[in-house]
């Protein structure tokens, strides 16, 4: 018995190695704080790009796959709001921005355009889920853009308390913590 016990570490070795390799493969994990979202905005020439990363909790109030009708309804509504970036980010009409690309990604939205294999879905039930939105605009009068107004975003998703904003314009880089009480960043 004792001999067998001594052999135990060796028996487990492949597991340990597999685990180590596994960890290496997954790379690093991003931060996930409920109530806090991240928004990156870049403006160069006529191109405006906005990326929004937020825990699903801020948007729909849950992070498990939607199973009940109520959850599915919420999810559909949120999706609809998120797919109207002009309103969401209060982009002024005078700038003449048209959406040239937009993409919403989240484990909650199922697998359209998502490259997760099916084996992963079970894990996701216990994991935190993020919603990731990527928007690209082409603006005819980009000079009009001089501020980022997130009032509508806070209004549409009141569970969002802070948005960490990173801004890049041809002139400068800026960072800001935006709160509902002060939702505008001038640049």
């Amino acid at each position: 018995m004792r001999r067998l016990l001594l052999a135990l570490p060796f028996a487990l070795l492949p597991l340990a190695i597999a685990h180590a390799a596994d960890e290496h493969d997954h790379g690093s994990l991003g931060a996930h704080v409920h109530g806090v979202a991240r928004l990156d905005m870049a403006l160069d020439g006529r191109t405006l790009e906005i990326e929004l990363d937020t825990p699903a909790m801020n948007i729909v109030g849950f992070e498990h796959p939607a199973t009940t009708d109520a959850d599915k309804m919420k999810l559909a509504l949120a999706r609809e709001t998120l797919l109207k970036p002009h309103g969401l980010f209060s982009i002024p009409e005078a700038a003449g921005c048209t959406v040239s690309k937009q993409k919403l990604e989240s484990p909650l939205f199922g697998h359209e355009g998502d490259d997760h294999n099916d084996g992963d879905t079970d894990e996701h039930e216990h994991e935190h889920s993020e919603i990731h939105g990527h928007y690209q605009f082409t603006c005819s009068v980009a000079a009009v853009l001089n501020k980022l107004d997130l009032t509508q975003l806070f209004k549409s998703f009141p569970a969002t308390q802070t948005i960490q904003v990173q801004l890049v314009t041809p002139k400068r880089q800026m960072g800001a913590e935006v709160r509902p009480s002060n939702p505008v960043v001038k640049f």
Partner: protein
Amino acid sequence: MYLLRLALASLANRRFTAFLTAFAIALSVCLLLAVERVRTEARASFASTISGTDLIVGARSGSVNLLLYSVFRIGNATNNIRWDSFEHFAGSKQVKWAIPVSLGDSHRGYRVMGTTEAYFEHYQYGRQRHLELVDGRPFDTDPFEVVLGAEVAEALHYKLGDKLVLAHGVAVVSLVKHDDMPFTVVGILKRTGTPVDRTLHISLGGMEAIHIDWHNGAPAQGAGRITADQARNMDLTPTAITAFMLGLNSKISTFALQREINEFRGEPMLAILPGVALQELWSLMGTAEKALFVISLFVVLTGLIGMLTAILTSLNERRREMAILRSVGARPWHVATLLILEAFALALAGAVSGLALLYIGIAAAQGYVQANYGLYLPLSLPSAYEWTLLGGILGAALLMGVVPAWRAYRQSLADGLSIRL
């Protein structure tokens, strides 16, 4: 006008107390303005140190930490990053230019930075200003060439062609020196008012060469030593660097590349936007700045209250003065105005000599502060905000002068000339 003359004459009569009171106000005004000036200048000099760099990449730590050690030479790196990681991202098609940075050695308290020619070509400070050489040229293919920052050259009296020895580590007094491989000064940079002035720039090859025969953190002994000439013929490609700066073709790709670097599987790295990290630093320092500002405001308040006390206590002994004034035809409001003018004159004297003290202080400490803290304090005229502060102090003094004025007004009404002495 004659009232002002009277007030001044009365003050001159009590010149010692008046002088002390004005001096207390002067000190507090000087403190307030100094805090304000250091705050704004520190911000300005931090903000103008780096410009045009889209991303700074280093080992994974905090963004403020990375910014401080890579750009401001404050603190040290937690880890180095691999040279092949640098090459991987420097070759990326979004990247326009890349500057590797290797830190860790020093020369008489000044930091030494290993880099490439790209630094002189692409590093920008202030408003898109490039580095310029006052003298000489950037370092070339020979690894043992050094380009000095303006401050280093000036403080240590180096000129082109001088030889200097670098010390291992960043302690001011270092026991381990790279004295087997001296460097030749080939260039001196123009003053920038940034940490660049306090840096010695050598090539990455030079950085590699002085450490080439080191093992386990100590130089090799005896036969193991490699001479400078031997080192010249060896492969001096570094294996690790401390950080690197990236300039991108399009600002749009900033975030995509930042993400790519942060999720790089080869090694844990952190990419930051210098402008964003600076803002983070401000929000950290903001609290301390506010505290300092509030403290100095209270010091000013203390000075003004001291003045109020001095005037109030003098009121009693000056009943006679007031009575004489009344007897020669002064009305009660004359007496009140006299006291307000007195307070104002004291505060004005305090503010003016406070400003004078500030400028004397700046003129005296300028060189020292620049050399030791890298902070350039210009002898510029007070800013609009400083004028506002001074105006506020004078306003507060006027307001305080109302208190003794009101008392004197009442007294001179009640006592009139019937005062018994």
